[in-house]
């Protein structure tokens, strides 16, 4: 889903802005009275986006909250007379035996994806930081997985991981490992979707962390090298600490957007088998759309739980970012 990719680009954008745009004088001027005409002009420029936000973001959200607070049967959904039931749908969702597994999968999916994307992205960024022949070209090629339409990536992975005809099992067979039912075994399905999602997320981490590395003055490394610090030492005492602000923001935003990953899982496993790869995002869809008869209320409730989780981490992100801008 491009929404997972789009906003992810943000830390990069904000980080350098705080770094480089700040000193240029434009940002953070001394607070002074703002003339009214300029206020009017400013809001005239902002009006379309503000209206847009209300119509296309606030309204769906409002509607979803409303859905989650009513008891719907198919009949009352159509007739529109569903009674207000407060938090009953949320209770239903919490008591559902699928709740605990879905929560666990969501946490596992998000954490494992984040850790691997970050570690691999960082390792690659450090690797590419040293210029070598073809390094720019290869770095560009690394972006490909991230730019492909998600449906393309998801279909490719599901075919590669096919139990009987997939290349992955063929390769395992060649080295003497028994075939794995990636998409059809409850033990492996979550791993399979995590694998695909990591693949998609690594390029982004690579590019952002690479740009973070470039902001570290080369002189520091030279000094450390003169002091006899080896590459490992240099990484832990220079690169990693100086990269912390970029890392924090990359990880936080990654978290917010990995939480709502939907397309990959839905196309590859539909959350199955036996709900073994169901996360909140797919569960919400499953409830609202996946069955013969939709359960709109609980589906919306699960969706709202996701929104709340994303909001909490989003607020943390804003705080972290503000702190960094101040320091």
């Amino acid at each position: 889903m491009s929404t997972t990719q789009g906003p992810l680009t943000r830390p990069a954008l904000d980080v350098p802005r705080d770094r480089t745009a700040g000193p240029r004088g434009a940002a953070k001027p001394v607070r002074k009275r703002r003339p009214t005409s300029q206020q009017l002009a400013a809001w005239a420029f902002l009006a379309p986006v503000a209206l847009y936000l209300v119509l296309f973001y606030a309204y769906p959200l409002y509607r979803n909250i409303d859905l989650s607070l009513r008891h719907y049967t198919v009949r009352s959904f159509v007739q529109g007379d569903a009674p207000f039931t407060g938090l009953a749908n949320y209770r239903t969702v919490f008591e559902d035996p699928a709740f605990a597994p879905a929560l666990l999968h969501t946490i596992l999916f998000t954490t494992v994806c984040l850790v691997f994307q970050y570690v691999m992205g960082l390792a690659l960024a450090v690797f590419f930081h040293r210029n070598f022949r073809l390094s720019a070209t290869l770095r560009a090629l690394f972006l490909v997985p991230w730019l492909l339409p998600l449906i393309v990536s998801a279909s490719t992975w599901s075919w590669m991981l096919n139990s009987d005809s997939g290349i992955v099992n063929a390769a395992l067979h060649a080295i003497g490992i028994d075939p794995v039912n990636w998409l059809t075994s409850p033990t492996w399905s979550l791993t399979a979707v995590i694998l695909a999602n990591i693949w998609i997320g690594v390029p982004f981490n690579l590019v952002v962390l690479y740009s973070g590395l470039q902001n570290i003055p080369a002189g520091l490394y030279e000094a450390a090298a003169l002091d006899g610090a080896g590459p490992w030492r240099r990484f832990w005492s220079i690169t990693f600490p100086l990269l912390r602000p970029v890392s924090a923001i990359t990880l936080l935003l990654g978290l917010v957007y990995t939480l709502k990953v939907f397309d990959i899982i839905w196309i590859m496993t539909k959350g199955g088998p036996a709900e073994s790869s169901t996360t909140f995002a797919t569960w919400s869809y499953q409830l609202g759309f996946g069955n013969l008869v939709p359960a709109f209320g609980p589906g919306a409730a699960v969706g709202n739980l996701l929104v709340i989780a994303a909001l909490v981490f989003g607020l943390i992100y804003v705080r972290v970012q503000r702190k960094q801008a101040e320091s």
Partner: protein
Amino acid sequence: MNSLIRRHRPTTAVLAALALTATASACGSGSGGTNTGGGDSGTYTIWDPYPQFAKGSDWAKLLDKCGSDAGVKIKRTAFDTSDLANKSLLAAQQDNSPDVLIVDNPVVSTLAEAGVLTSTDETKLDTSKTDPNLLAAGQSGGKTYGTPIGANTLALYYNKDVLKDAGIDIASVKDWASLTAALDKAEKAGKKGITFSAIGTEEGSFQFLPWFWGAGAELTAVDSAKSEAALTLWSDWLKKGYAPNSVLNNTQTTSWQEFESGQYAFAENGTWQLAGAEKATFEYGVLPIPGQSGGTAAAPTGGEFVTMPVQSDTGRYATSQKLVTCLTSTQNLLATDTTLSYVAPTAEVQDKQVAANAKLGPWVDAVKAAKGRTDDLGTKYPKISEQLWKAVQSALSGAKSPKDALSAAQEAAAK
């Protein structure tokens, strides 16, 4: 108008004021029940679950022709089957239902219960010629809510070449034990046994039901010992490698493509694959699905119903009724069911079909013997079916034993 819709109005007004598009203002002006699904009175909307038929296909042409016969323009939209029930409910909520809705038969009673569909009493639709066992899926509370456009059911296709290589005599396959023995022979001969679809959707339940009913189980008690026997049969096939693991993600189409690869002895699939089977590179045969201890298992009836959703402007029914009658006329049914590779719902057309293609003969019999999914359960079916396919997935993937999976299903369905 109901409260929910009224609450949506302000947004509509704002949007219309924005004049985002020309159409916006056109619909915002409607006072009572606007019918934007269709547009003006000269245009009638039809929703169908046949996205495989593009513009210019025979099906699309037939719709247009029925439209021009009735003196109206047709606006057709094709949805994926799995989306259609949901979209219909949303449309009905917004008072925007299509004039004619062609929808999978197990959903009809649910839509009727929701008040989305008109009954044939209201719309004076004649359903007298239709086979009663097929019509049953569209009946609820003594009323009929549509008419089938065609029917299909499931049977076992077999690959004669593979059977020959593996030394299997098809006449020996009479019950589950002999079928399993045949699968074992195929497996030993280096071929593959059977493929089917156990995906976590309605298709999975549809494919499981012949075995479920073949064991004598009832949908009212999915945790019975008989039901367990059916699920154990499937899960043992997977354990022994008689069926591939991919059945868990197989749609009926994927499963068919596995069979087309020529390596499988058997495939459980539907009437609609008949046209494709003719194109296969090997000789095939068709066998009714055997019951546990012999005989023929009841297979579920598949196929869609032509229905007429409720409109706020009841004056539209007369034309819609003409459209439905045209679509289900003897001549058009023959053409449509031939394209869809379905069995027609009336005896008259069935005879013509068999006359044109003798291979349809066994399928006509199978459809006549088939059982509607909602016959015993009505609107409870979708809920139980969902639990059933979940249980099948749990058992086949090894997450739970068949017994545990089914008792969990019964418990969830009873809620």
